[in-house]
């Protein structure tokens, strides 16, 4: 981060928010952009062709015409989300319209009773579809085509018998009129009902179990089944809901126009399908939203409405609608096909990063980092029994804990740590570990957040989200990559979230970006809240509380430096560099028994990598044009452990020349004269006897004092 180099375009690029393009494209709502834009364009064209079209009065009257169509569109959307199709909506609509008018006009059933009867009738018709499709697994297209014919035939038969009777009994009824032509606060009743339904369905679709199940079934039926979702029931419910909504549409149409006829609901299935496809709801399921279905319905309706009003004759209206639909589908297909490609290329957004000149590590160079072979004689523990012990920690009883790739925490005890127990199964990818005052093991779990394990092995969640920052496009309230933690004397937990843009498995992208994507969060157990403490860090990783409890040290992996951050006093929240020119990529930091600090180095810098970091354009081209396995990547084959003083002086350095036991070290803990070492990709834990170490040093004691005895004060950190 030297400021010595001259100002250049690529240096300025760090201020250019190129990463936002990718973040916008990665948003789920980006799919809605096309239909929403088309909707706005269609509305603007309508305003141009028909002055006053967007005026309040006109919108009110047009929206009244829109509501029933919207209700049926909602129903169809649910079925399509579920991977189905319902061609019988028009038939249900007409039957419901007929039933409602017969109940109210002829039988004089009170409206409050007629409405539920009609909805239940619709639900029953939907149950026929749902049973045949969901339970008997007959193809939706064929089933609903058949039920469409049957429902329509039923309408025609009933019309012959009841039409004159219903028409003759045409009366005006205040409640019925309120549904049909009434207004609530200036908005037509049917539009209010539609709006409520749309909001409720949106919430159900995005936030309820049934909604997720339906979406999952539509996305991949087999996978949904394997995930334990009741596929049949989900499909059945979708058809029932669709028909109930269609029936409600038919009912409101009856209330509005009081019209019965052979053409009621004819062709509705096609119009509604066109509408939701226009809105970008994928036929085949799994993709789409209520809002998009509504946008599609608005587009369809405004188009027809404008053409009718312009006096365009008959067939031309359908033709124009067909053409617009074709264009929209074509565009949508291309958009869907290319969105991921664009995203893939646009998301990775390398930034300018100038690292300090690295110190020499050659033997005989006199550098404190001189290569040596002091780890060669390390004692190997748990060989083959561990898979990726990123962090290791020892408790008061000298038992060794480490997190596994599989989401487990193992505990090793006994002579030579020969006894292995599954201490806890958290899930995710456990990384950094620390003991709190009550001997709970606090764990950073990548992909999940901050968790704790009680001494008896019970897992509990501390936090999985922080505050959302105001101007972030990507949702940064999610804790994506909780990496390492330490606990302040007051119990507050400071932990690093290495990247807000990438998950653990994509760490290489974050390295390629060299962008300030990481942050340090603070979890306060007193209020059970998590706040972002420091942001704009380059892959913050290891964290270690300093002995006075007023500040902590942290390492930024891709920034290759160690800094101090104050948590108390006038400098609270301020960051100062402690070591700015590490020769490698730092990982965890932990306390040494002599009051200094151990720092693990997972890999070494190379001149090519350092140079590439100053050339964002080069890295952009590399990501876009070169296959992934040929990318330049940070070197994680060789690392070391260093000991440094609080002022940044390098005191010691331990290398593994053989690179078998400890090629890439991510963590080390000092315990009773030994240093225990772990690695993110290692299959063993090693330990090495330290020469000048305090043989009584035990981490939790150093932090929290001797074990608490009932009635006594909690120990102060050493």
């Amino acid at each position, binding site marked *: 981060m030297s400021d010595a180099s001259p100002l250049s375009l690529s240096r300025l690029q760090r201020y250019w928010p190129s990463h936002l393009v990718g973040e916008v494209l990665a948003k789920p709502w980006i799919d809605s952009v096309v239909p929403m834009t088309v909707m706005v364009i269609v509305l603007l064209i309508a305003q141009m062709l028909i002055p*006053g079209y967007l005026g309040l*009065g*006109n919108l009110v*009257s*047009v929206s*009244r*015409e829109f509501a029933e*169509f919207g209700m049926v569109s909602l129903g169809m959307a649910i079925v399509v989300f579920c991977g189905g199709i319902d061609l019988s909506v028009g038939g249900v609509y007409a039957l419901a319209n007929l039933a409602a008018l017969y109940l109210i006009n002829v039988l004089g059933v009170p409206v409050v009773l007629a409405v539920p009867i009609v909805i239940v009738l619709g639900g029953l018709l939907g149950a026929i579809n749902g049973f045949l499709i969901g339970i008997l697994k007959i193809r939706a297209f064929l089933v609903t085509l058949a039920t469409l014919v049957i429902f329509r035939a039923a309408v*025609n038969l009933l*019309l*012959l018998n009841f*039409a*004159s009777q*219903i*028409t003759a009994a*045409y009366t005006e009824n205040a409640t019925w*009129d309120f549904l*049909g*032509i009434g207004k609530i606060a200036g908005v037509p009743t049917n539009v209010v009902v539609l709006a409520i339904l749309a909001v409720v369905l949106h919430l159900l679709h995005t936030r309820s179990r049934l909604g997720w199940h339906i979406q999952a079934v539509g996305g991949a039926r087999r996978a949904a089944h394997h995930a334990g979702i009741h596929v049949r029931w989900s499909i059945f419910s979708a058809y029932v809901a669709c028909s109930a909504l269609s029936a409600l549409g038919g009912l409101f149409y009856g209330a*509005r*126009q*009081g*019209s*019965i*006829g*052979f*053409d*009621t609901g004819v062709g509705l299935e096609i119009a509604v399908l066109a509408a939701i496809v226009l809105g970008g709801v994928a036929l085949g399921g799994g993709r789409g939203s209520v809002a998009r279905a509504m946008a599609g319905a608005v587009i369809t309706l405004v188009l*027809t*409405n404008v053409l*009718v*009003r312009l*006096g*365009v*004759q*008959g*067939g031309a*209206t359908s033709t124009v609608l067909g053409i617009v639909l074709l264009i929209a589908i074509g565009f949508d297909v291309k958009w869907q096909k290319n969105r991921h490609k664009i995203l893939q290329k646009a998301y990775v957004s390398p930034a300018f990063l100038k690292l300090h000149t690295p110190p020499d590590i050659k033997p005989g160079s006199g550098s404190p980092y001189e290569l040596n072979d002091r780890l060669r004689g390390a004692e190997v523990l748990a060989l083959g029994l561990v898979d990726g012990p990123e962090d290791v920690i020892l408790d008061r009883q000298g038992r060794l804990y480490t997190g596994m790739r599989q989401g487990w925490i193992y505990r090793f005890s006994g002579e030579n740590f020969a006894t292995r127990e599954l201490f806890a199964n958290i899930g995710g990818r456990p990384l950094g570990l620390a003991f709190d005052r009550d001997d709970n093991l606090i764990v950073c779990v990548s992909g999940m957040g901050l968790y704790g394990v009680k001494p008896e092995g019970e897992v509990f969640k501390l936090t999985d989200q922080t505050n959302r920052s105001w101007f972030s496009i990507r949702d940064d309230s999610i804790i994506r990559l909780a990496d390492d933690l330490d606990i302040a004397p007051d119990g507050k937990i400071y932990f690093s979230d290495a990247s807000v843009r990438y998950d653990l498995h994509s760490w290489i992208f974050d390295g390629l970006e060299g962008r300030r994507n990481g942050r340090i969060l603070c979890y306060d157990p007193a209020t059970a809240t998590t706040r972002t403490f420091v942001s704009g860090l380059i892959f913050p990783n290891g964290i270690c509380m300093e002995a006075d409890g007023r500040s902590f040290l942290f390492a930024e992996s891709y920034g290759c430096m160690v800094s101090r951050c104050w948590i108390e006093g006038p400098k609270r929240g301020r960051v100062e560099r402690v070591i700015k020119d590490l020769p490698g990529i730092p990982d965890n930091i932990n306390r040494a028994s002599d009051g200094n600090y151990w720092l693990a180095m997972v890999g070494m810098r190379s001149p090519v990598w350092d140079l590439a970091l100053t050339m964002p354009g080069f890295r952009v081209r590399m990501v876009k044009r070169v296959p992934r396995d040929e990318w330049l990547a940070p070197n994680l084959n060789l690392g070391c452990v260093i000991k440094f003083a609080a002022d940044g002086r390098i005191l010691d350095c331990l290398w593994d020349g053989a690179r078998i036991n400890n090629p890439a070290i991510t963590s080390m803990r000092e315990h009773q004269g030994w240093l225990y070492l772990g690695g993110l990709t290692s299959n063993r834990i090693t330990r090495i006897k330290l020469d000048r170490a305090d043989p009584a040093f035990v981490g939790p004691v150093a932090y929290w004092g001797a074990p608490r005895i009932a009635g006594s004060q909690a120990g102060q950190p050493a």
Partner: protein
Amino acid sequence: MQCVRNRSRLKLFAAAICSLGALALVSGTCLAAGTQDKTRDSYFQTLKGKKIVWIAAVMGNDLQAEWDAQFRKLASAVGMQYSLRDANFNTQAQSQAMEAAIHEKPDILVVQSLNVTLLARQIKRAEAAGIPVIQLNMKSLQDSTGFVGADYVGIGQQSADAIVKACSPKNGKSGKIAIIQGEITAADSYLQMQGAMPIFKAHPEIKIVANQAAEWDPNKAHDVAATILQQHPDLCAFYGLWGEMSMGIGQAIKEAGMQGKVGNYSNDGGARYACTATKEGMFSEFWSYDAPGQARDVMELAISILENHVKPGTMKTVLYSPMIAFTPQTVQASMCYDPPKR
């Protein structure tokens, strides 16, 4: 007698058109200068630029094409702005067009309702909003400032009387008849049945063997008629509720080789085809409500409403169209109009 009256009306109408056309040519200067004929000045001043909107049930057949052509011609002659909205047999589209019209507030709104209930409330709202509504031929249950069109109850009665007479077993016929309706809830179907059914019921010797709806589609009517003829070879007559649709029935009778044996009774605006087909024996008796005459009635009523600044609700004028009836024996070329070329 009706024919005579009608022909004289046609002549009068032609004369009026000619003179209006001639006036229109010079009216620009005349209006500017003012003439001695004060009523003439105010007539044109009142009508100039007035908007008349017609919401048609469907375009694409002779009846509506004739009305449209006449409206266009008559409106432009007096400087009115005419525009057409086509519902294309789609109730949804018609109610949208109606909603838009209410919002637009034309000076005169002419509607041909697809069925008797569809536009009832909207007609009421339009009139409440100050738009005089003239209903054309297909009535809504809601009455309005004006109605111009056929007396369908009357046509139903006349048709039923004629069919009863022709099919009575007393005259050696089977008494079996079939009714092919259009859209059951549309005014022409609904009201004709109101007129006809009591008469059929009063004659137990007449047996209605089929009563179907073909939704104004000649092809559907043809197929239905062909099936009925197979089931009832001794059928006496068809009563089809609209002429253009009933051409399908006539065709089915012809195909079955039963022309002359099975009657075909129908009615409509009386375009050229009706006279030709009747002459060829496709229809046994045909009632025409004279489409060009209806168009003129609508325009006259509209002009009268505008001249008198009639507020909706203060007037309810019903103008039933005079009928022209003809049979293969009585039909003359002048009884039908030549529809505009489409």
